């Protein structure tokens, strides 16, 4: 432990610090381009049309085990030898992309935000601030 930290603890009459996590609010997250790049990458988020029926991500309150552990593996399952996704595969239209933040809207889509992650984020942020979400 550094001396200045030790001195501070001594002045505070404490033996150690309590760590508290101050997570960013969703609305305060900066829209780094890498985030947008990743959620447009088919290796990160599914691009299957089936996803339109609902988000692929866990909803708040879902038990961790239910999220991490899906249906049991079939006993006949082959070892994981899979065909790599072609990195340059074209991204589908925005309407087919599962919404990263669909949980906030119960999975529904807004026509004016499809295909534009930044617009989507701003739109959701406004709704949160207005107490609609």
């Amino acid at each position: 432990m550094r001396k200045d930290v030790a001195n501070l603890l001594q002045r505070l009459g404490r033996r150690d610090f309590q760590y508290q996590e101050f997570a960013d609010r969703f609305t305060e997250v900066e829209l780094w381009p890498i985030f947008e790049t990743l959620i447009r990458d088919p290796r990160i988020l599914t691009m299957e049309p089936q996803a339109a029926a609902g988000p692929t991500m866990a909803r708040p309150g879902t038990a961790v085990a239910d999220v991490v552990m899906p249906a049991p593996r079939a006993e006949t399952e082959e070892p994981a030898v899979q065909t790599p996704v072609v990195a340059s595969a074209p991204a589908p239209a925005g309407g087919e992309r599962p919404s990263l933040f669909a949980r906030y809207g119960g999975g529904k889509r807004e026509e004016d935000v499809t295909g534009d992650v930044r617009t989507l984020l701003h739109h959701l942020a406004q709704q949160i601030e207005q107490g609609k979400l």
Partner: protein
Amino acid sequence: MPFILCHSPKGGAGTSFVAAHLALALAEAGHAVTAVDMTRQDSLKLYFGMTPIQAIPDFDAPEDDAHVVAGVSLRQGYRVAHTDAFALSLARGEVPLTGERYIIADVSADDVGLRALLLPHAALVVMPVVPTAIGLAALTQAQPGTPLVEQDYTGFVINRLDETRRFGRNAHTFLRELLGGKLLGAIHEDEAVNEATARGQLLPAHTAASAAMKDIRNLAVAVAAVCAPGQDAIEDVA
């Protein structure tokens, strides 16, 4: 019992650290645990107060040869895992990945062959992610053929999180949104980890109030919950 595969698509993500301390935390919680170092670096043992020159028993050594530190039985599995016979033994169920113990394997980022070999036998893959731009980008390489958010039997943990850093803070929020319940936890940057290793001490003994160790204990609770009996999916399918 659970075979937990610790692997990250990015080298330097702290996979050995996570594997070692997850083993320690599970042992602290009263579980029987074996930690298997399947990396060529052979560095897992350093987190158990050992020195580089000290050897730990091979994975296939007799049980009597066990080297136990803080309730964790340590094994070196790199040599065994890279023999021609290993895949066959694994397929025949001859590799002791079942039983009453947690078995936690530390596999190098680049050793994707071994990862693929072990994956079907794993109850859970614990994937450390460093909250940097490169760390996030490496997630695209996590498992070819399966989108990240659809990877079953996989739990992610952010490692070396520094919330005084803007990007790290934002990346934490981003990953929480992206991964939902698959994000099992976050481990804060903690210089005590390096200091404890440099002194040849266990982290909990070196710094009782270690922020990283506290986070690891929370991770162990999450992992134990995921692997708890009753989760049909964790049954070995070898």
